[in-house]
């Protein structure tokens, strides 16, 4: 038996898993309408490649990846696109987001599918492309694009492939039932992942509270390279970092990725999705979702088309709306409340929890923290939640970072044990958001500072160049003056006076010759002036000179025109006289 390790902290909340394990996986059928958010994964949202009123077939791609870290989206059944617009989606923010809405025609007509006959003949890159094109994102809850995760950082080799079947959150049984009923598919999917990653070992980890799943997996994995490892039930063993520590005794470096240790983690549901994509060519269009909680009559697991409104599923399970006070997507520890049952099931919807008020009572008002330390005992990251709370209240961001706020995985164990009912995780989330916001602003102001400094430098340089030119001119002038002085004892002032006299004499002579025609026709002189002004105006406009100058010139031109008109009128009058 492989040695398993422990991890710090953890809690044992009531499991509440048996309620939804009474029956086999049930197909949820086709609702009238499917609502498919363009962003069901981490990364850039997908880009629609269909238009309203298009008919789409089941499995047809309807949105392409919006970037490198992104996945496409496929039609879960055949029908017509009735809208591409914002709709309520399951998201902690509660904000609506762009969705493609399909009115289902009920025919469930497949687009042609093309599986790979033998994936062993394929290159890893080819298979990764197929996985990406099938729209697969982590099915455990985070929804990170699987192909990106599998590709890893260039140059990193994978030592250990970990398949996560832990499902440590209370209430959720989607993975459990999948492992019980489709162990063969899981093993087949893992074989493909093995072919892609070529790991030295493959560990399939799950908690010892799932004996049926363990038996099924062990039977299916017999003879393969997969080692099924079980360990004691404790929340949050299913967290990626915790599972890695349990199975390998290693800790993922803070701020790093499992890949830094040569480890890749994938969820069992993802393995099945990979199998479907490679062997059958079937894109990710459905998933298994647990519908549970005391507000529904028959809690169970559904195989449900992505985009199915939660209301539809809840009705299938027999919801009593009057009993249901909150609707949670995910489990009671890390799930978030959905504000409308019209929100659809997405790729990461492993559970829809409809608890009654007695089952999960609303949080009582928080009492002061007495620093009892139960939170520190429960924290799987070995943080000091009570200190973080203290600093979060005081918005002491520096202290928060010093106390490693960003190593918090928001598992909720601290809030769960808190005798003062303080919503600790909420404080941490808010503080993280504040700090990230501050960092962004910091980066922005840093950039602004760099720009400003660059501008200052440029201006200084220009000024310097001008100064240099000025100095050069001055030097030249002085040189000239010096030369002139040397050349003859000619007084510059005297010279200037002489020049002025000569100019005046020349002008008088010119005037004498020009006087007669000018006197004969004042209009001609005005016309000349007008032409000059107009020329000047055009010049100033094309040169983009100051608006004041332009308008002054315009005024001059107008005045000259008026004068000219007057003069002409006078001339005709005298002419007729």
């Amino acid at each position, binding site marked *: 038996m492989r040695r398993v390790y422990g991890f710090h902290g953890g809690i044992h909340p009531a499991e509440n898993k048996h309620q939804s394990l009474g029956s086999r996986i049930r197909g949820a059928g086709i609702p009238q309408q499917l609502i498919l958010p363009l962003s069901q994964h981490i990364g850039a949202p997908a880009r629609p490649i269909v238009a309203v009123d298009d008919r789409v077939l089941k499995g047809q791609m309807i949105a392409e990846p919006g970037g490198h870290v992104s996945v496409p989206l496929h039609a879960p059944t055949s029908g017509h696109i009735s809208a591409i617009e914002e709709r309520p989606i399951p998201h902690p923010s509660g904000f609506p987001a762009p969705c493609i809405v399909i009115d289902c025609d009920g025919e469930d007509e497949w687009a042609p599918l093309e599986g790979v006959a033998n994936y062993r003949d394929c290159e890893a890159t080819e298979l990764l492309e197929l996985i990406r094109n099938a729209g697969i994102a982590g099915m455990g809850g985070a929804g990170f694009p699987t192909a990106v995760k599998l590709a890893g950082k260039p140059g990193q080799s994978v030592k250990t492939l970990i398949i996560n079947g832990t499902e440590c959150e209370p209430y959720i049984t989607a993975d459990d039932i999948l492992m019980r009923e489709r162990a063969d598919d899981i093993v087949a999917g893992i074989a493909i992942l093995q072919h892609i990653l070529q790991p030295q070992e493959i560990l399939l980890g799950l908690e010892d509270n799932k004996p049926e799943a363990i038996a099924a997996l062990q039977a299916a994995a017999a003879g393969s390279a997969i080692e099924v490892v079980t360990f004691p039930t404790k929340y949050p063993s299913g967290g990626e970092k915790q599972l890695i520590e349990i199975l390998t005794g290693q800790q993922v470096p803070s701020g*790093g990725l499992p890949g830094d240790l040569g480890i890749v983690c994938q969820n069992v549901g993802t393995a099945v999705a990979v199998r479907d994509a490679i062997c059958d060519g079937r894109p990710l269009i459905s998933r298994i979702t647990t519908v549970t909680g005391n507000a529904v009559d028959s809690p169970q697991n559904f195989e449900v088309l992505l985009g199915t409104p939660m209301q539809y599923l809840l009705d299938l399970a027999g919801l009593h709306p009057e009993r249901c006070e909150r609707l949670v997507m995910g489990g009671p520890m890390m799930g978030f*409340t959905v504000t409308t049952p019209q929100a659809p099931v997405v790729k990461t919807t492993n559970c829809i929890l409809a608890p009654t008020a007695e089952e999960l009572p609303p949080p009582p008002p928080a009492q002061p923290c007495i620093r009892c330390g139960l939170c520190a005992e429960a924290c799987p990251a070995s943080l000091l939640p009570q200190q973080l709370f203290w600093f979060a209240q005081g918005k002491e961001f520096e202290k928060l970072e010093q106390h490693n706020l960003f190593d918090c995985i928001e598992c909720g164990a601290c809030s769960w044990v808190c*005798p*003062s009912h303080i919503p600790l995780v909420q404080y941490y989330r808010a503080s993280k958001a504040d700090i990230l916001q501050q960092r962004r602003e910091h980066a922005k102001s840093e950039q602004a500072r760099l720009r400003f400094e660059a501008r200052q430098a440029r201006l200084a340089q220009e000024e310097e160049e001008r100064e240099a030119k000025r100095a050069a001119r001055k030097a030249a002038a002085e040189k000239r003056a010096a030369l002139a002085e040397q050349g003859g004892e000619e007084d510059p002032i005297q010279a200037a006076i002489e020049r002025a006299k000569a100019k005046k004499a020349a002008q008088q002579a010119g005037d004498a010759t020009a006087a007669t025609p000018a006197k004969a026709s004042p209009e001609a002189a005005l016309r000349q002036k007008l032409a000059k002004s107009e020329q000047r105006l055009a010049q100033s406009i094309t040169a983009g000179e100051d608006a004041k100058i332009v308008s002054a010139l315009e005024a001059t031109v107008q005045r000259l025109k008026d004068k000219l008109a007057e003069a002409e009128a006078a001339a005709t009058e005298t002419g007729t006289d």
Partner: protein
Amino acid sequence: MALMRVSSPHAHGSYSTGMVMRQVLLATVPGVFVLTLFFGFGTLINVLWACLVGLACESIALLLRGRSLAFYLKDCSALVTCVLLGIALPPYAPWWLIAVGVAASILMAKQLYGGLGYNPFNPAMVGYVVLLISFPVQMTAWAPPRGLGDVPGLWEALQACFLPARYDAVTMATPLDVLRQNQGLLLEDLWAQTPQFGRWAGIGWEWVNLAFLAGGLWLLYRRIFTWHAPVAMLASLALMATLFYDGGSSSSGGSPLFHLLSGATMFGAFFIITDPVSSAVSVRGRLVFGALIGVLVYLIRVWGNYPDAVAFAVLIANFAAPFIDHYTQPRVYGHGKSGGAG
């Protein structure tokens, strides 16, 4: 269907502050019982009167601060402070002494700092030290245990508390006093010549300490606090006592067992230094915190001017708690020695 928007987690454990406090109160029962058995009703009256005054003080402070009475009284923290102070005070103390102590605890040490959770010092110990410095005569007058003198009845006990002028108190030096004032006698001889000593420590006191130990172990079992601070304190106290035991000579500080079962050792270890608000927070921090108190208790008991030392030791360690916290942060997941097994 009006749906709530709340942030995760949606499930909660069953702990509550009031529950924790009530269990602490319950755990004092054996100790109070044994104290009453050996010293009469004095302690019980102390505790009840302290609670009454304490609730009044807490209510006034809450009203002045504009807080909800029902919500804050429900946490029982004021009761815990008052019960602990009542136990620490000498039996048959006059009513005004108790009232002054409680007022100092609740009003000064707790509410002035912002109420539960914000007090840097242990409120019960602040009250105790205020009294010890202000009224040393009343505070060092301990009644003789049953067997060494008459134990007053209920009526006399009430009189001692509420009509102190009409009551002639009978007092006797505690074993810790006797040992500190020992001049020239070997421990063995001192033991033989002084009636106050029992099997391991003082008559009555050894049982009082064992009863508080029992209550403390029950709290440990109920996981109200962790073992770190109490064990560290008892271990460091025992270690100091062993180092300076001196084979029982005339300058001996007393045997480890004597120190463990004398005065407020067990009461302090399980009921005072485990106050989470004013202690260090991390596991390592609590070890340091407890060990510091153990050493200080011994130093003050043997070479200091006060017969018992838990109150001073705790207050000094309270001062040191933020400093200890600063240097004992636990190693966070993924930091430091990467790859270390958990």
